[in-house]
Structure formats: structure tokens, C-alpha cells
């Protein structure tokens, strides 16, 4: 394996006071190698999004260290490109101008940024929709716009927080296949935060399983499935074995999450 390009070292994040606080993430350590696709999987409420915001440099005030290429992350790092869970396209910009946004910030000339944006619009399969506004697109298409926009910034590391969470199952599978395709083509180092088992197994080289509150590393699973992975991988017995194996871990954590919720309700 190549040298890790992203490392998360003993990261702990607490919210609230010492007396009445929640430890969202505790002593979290893992890394991502160059060209690798790593997923962090955990039940909802386990602190996945907190981890995403910490790595993305949007949340400060935590213990531990995040490094990119050996450099400590302190605020949004230029090597990291984020794709958010929520709808995040700019409703006042059409598709091409949304995708060109990061280039516009860097002062790339209009002609050049439109050309480069078009390349990524095509890559996510939205050619012909350049002039459309987000309101005219489906949720899946809008999320593809967000992904293209982040790719247009050409980040060394693509960091995604459940980018398919709000989409229906079919769209999610199709988009998953698209992302694998793109990732293979760009040899894009990617860190995906997700709660979906199939998504994690379908896309990842390694999967970091997270415990429920406080979020710790429960286990890191290496996915030895051949690449490129097409749709047929979803029905293979090996795929099923990985999903089943991970579900054993995840079920336990998800149950703890449910218990905690019931405890709060009573």
C-alpha cells in the first residue's frame, strides 16, 4: 500500500459541557491511502457527520489530529473536496455555473472554466442539462451536480457525507455504479461516510465500522472484491458474504442506538 495521504489520529470531539455533554467521536484513528476508496459506516446518530465536518475542516475545537499529505488540517484544506448529504446546489445558478463555481472562486477565465465544468458535467451524465436550473432537476440529478462541482475543483481527496442518503434505492444503485466508474477512471482517493451496507461494500477498498455513541473504530474490513465492479457484483455470493458479515457488527451498534432512543423516550 502506498503512503497514507489522509490520516485521522486519535480524534475526539465532545459537544456541550463536561457535565452535560455528548462525546460524538472518541479516539478515532484510521487512514486513507492514495487512490484508495474507504468508507466509514455506522448507525445513524453515531457521529459520522461530525467526523465528516472535522476532516473537512468545518468543525474545529477537537482533540487529535487530521493530516493531508503530512500537513495538519486546520480549516478547509485545498486537497479535500466535500460533497454534502443535504441538497447543496445553488438554486440561482444553472448546472454549468454550479459546477464551475470552485473554478470561478479561483479566478479561472469564463471560457476555460465552462470548458472544464462541461467535462465534469459530462462525466456525471448530465450533458444536455447544462442550462437547466436545480429546481428543474430530480434529486438524483442535483446530487450529481454537487458531485461534479466538487470534482471540478480537482481535489486530491474526495470526501462525501452520505451523498445518496436522500435518494431512492434505484437511483442510489445507479449513482453508486457511476461513482465507482468515475473513481476508477480518475483513480480518485475517496472517503465516503455512509450508513448503507451495500453502498459501502459496492464501492470500497476498506470499510471502517463505527460504534454507536461515542463513535469509535469498531473494526476495519478490507473488501477483496475484484475491480472494476459492475452491477453484477451486487448479486455475487462474495458480496453477500461481506454484507452479512458487516451487518453482524452494524446490527449490534444500531441496536444500541435504538435502545438509547427508547431510553430517551421513556
Amino acid at each position, binding site marked *: 500500500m502506498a503512503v497514507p495521504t489522509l490520516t485521522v489520529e486519535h480524534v475526539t470531539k465532545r459537544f456541550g459541557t463536561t457535565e452535560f455533554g455528548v462525546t460524538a467521536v472518541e479516539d478515532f484513528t484510521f487512514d486513507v491511502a492514495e487512490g484508495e476508496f474507504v468508507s466509514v459506516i455506522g448507525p445513524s446518530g453515531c457521529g459520522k457527520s461530525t467526523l465528516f465536518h472535522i476532516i473537512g475542516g468545518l468543525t474545529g475545537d477537537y482533540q487529535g489530529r487530521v493530516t493531508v499529505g503530512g500537513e495538519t488540517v486546520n480549516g478547509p484544506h485545498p486537497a479535500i*473536496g466535500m460533497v454534502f448529504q443535504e441538497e*447543496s446546489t445553488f438554486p440561482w445558478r444553472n448546472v454549468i455555473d454550479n459546477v464551475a463555481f470552485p473554478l470561478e472562486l479561483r479566478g479561472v477565465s469564463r471560457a476555460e472554466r465552462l470548458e472544464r465544468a462541461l467535462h465534469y458535467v459530462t462525466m456525471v451524465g448530465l450533458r444536455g442539462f447544462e442550462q437547466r436550473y436545480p429546481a428543474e432537476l430530480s434529486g438524483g440529478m442535483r446530487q450529481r451536480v454537487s458531485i461534479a462541482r466538487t470534482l471540478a475543483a480537482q481535489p486530491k481527496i474526495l470526501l462525501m457525507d452520505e451523498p445518496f442518503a436522500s435518494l431512492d434505492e434505484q437511483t442510489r444503485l445507479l449513482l453508486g455504479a457511476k461513482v465507482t466508474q468515475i473513481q476508477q477512471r480518475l483513480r480518485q482517493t475517496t472517503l465516503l461516510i455512509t450508513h448503507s451496507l451495500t453502498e459501502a461494500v459496492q464501492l470500497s477498498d476498506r470499510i471502517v465500522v463505527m460504534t454507536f455513541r461515542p463513535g469509535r473504530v469498531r473494526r476495519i474490513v478490507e473488501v477483496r472484491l475484484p475491480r472494476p465492479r459492475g452491477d453484477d457484483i451486487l448479486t455475487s455470493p462474495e458480496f453477500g458474504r461481506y454484507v452479512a458479515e458487516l451487518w453482524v457488527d452494524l446490527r449490534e451498534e444500531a441496536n444500541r442506538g435504538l435502545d438509547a432512543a427508547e431510553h430517551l423516550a421513556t
Partner: protein
Amino acid sequence: MAAARLRLIAAVAIMAAWEALAASGLLFRDVVPSLWYIAKALAITLADPAFYRNLGVTSGEFLMAVSVGGLAGASAGLALGANRFLAAAYERWVHYLAPVPKIIFFPALLLAFGAGPGSKIAMGAISCFFPVAISVASGVRAVRPVLLNVGHGFRATTWQMATKIYLPAVREPLLNGLRLGFGVAAIGILLAETKLSKAGIGFLVMDSYRRFDMPGMYALLILVVLLVAAVNAALTRLNRN
């Protein structure tokens, strides 16, 4: 169509009542002049170069006032909405000052800017500032946080955040604030012109009053109402696009 006809009937009824009142002789003849005299005064006013000169003065004051007040209001609104420290320090004061009739500041503005257009522009600008600032500040707070995170994630500068995310995101509250601002700026300027001035539509109105030229005064009032209505209609159209 039926509504338009109803409005026409209502207008005709009001004019008939006015005319009847004028003919009744119950009031001084000049307080409620016959529509005929008003129409004549309207024609005279529209043919008078002095009217256009004064209209130009007021329009110029208005444009300056809304540029200064609108720009200052939008900037203040962005700053107040985006910065919690500034909001804690100043926002309460903005809300306290907003409903204060700005005309009470007019004497101070006369001292500062003189009896010419300067004090009228200042009156209009101060009037315009508050609704714009308040509307934009609350609009900024309604911007979805994820859009701001996108900007931060791409390492947008403060200026880029303001111009490429906040400003387009608050377009609607900004336009609504400007519409309110235009209205109160016009009020402030006209009011100031009726108080102390040497030119402008407000000055003309007071001048015809002083000369007891009631038909001329009514003609001016009609023209002001039509102008304001036209500006408002133009803004509504702008808002829709």
C-alpha cells in the same frame, strides 16, 4: 374584466361626488375646485418647464438617496446577518430606530447638509436604510447553512462569500426591502421638500398652497400619485423576473 369595470364605476362615482360637492357651494370654492379647473391646471403643469426642472431635482435626490441608503442598508444587513457579534451589538438599535419618523432628524440634517438637495438626499437615504438592512439581515439568517459550508469548503474569501453566496441567496428579501425603502425614501424626500427647500416637487406643492392655487396643487398631487404608482409597478415586475 368585471373587476376593472367595477373600479372604473367607482372612480366615476368618486369624481361625480367631488363635482357635486364643488357645485354645492357648501365649502369655499377653492378648497374643492371643479374637476374642470383641476384638468386645466394639470395641462398647464405638464406644459410648464418649471415642473420638469423640479421633477428632475426630486428624481435626482431620490436616485442618490436610494443608492446611498440601499447600498448602506444592504451592506449593514449582510454584516448583521452574517456576524453574530455585530448583530448582538447593533441589531437591537436598528430595530429601535426603524419605526422612528425620520423627519425629526431633518433639522439636524439641515445643519449638516444645508437647505439644498443634500439634506433631502440624507433624509431619503436614512429612510431607505432601515427596511433594507432589516430585511437583508433576516434574509441572511435564512440562508441554508449547507450552502455556506459549500463556500467554506471551497475556501471562498469573505468577499466571495458575500457576493457569490449571501447576495444571490438574499435576492428576494433584498428586493422586498428595497421596495419598502423606495417608498419611505420618497416620503422622506417629499416631506423634507415641503418643510424647507428651494426646489423639488414637494416645494412646488407647498408653493401652490401658499399662492392658494388649489387646482394646481391637486394637479401636482395627482401627478405624484401616478409617478409613485408607476415606479411601484416597475418594481413589482422586476421582483417577478
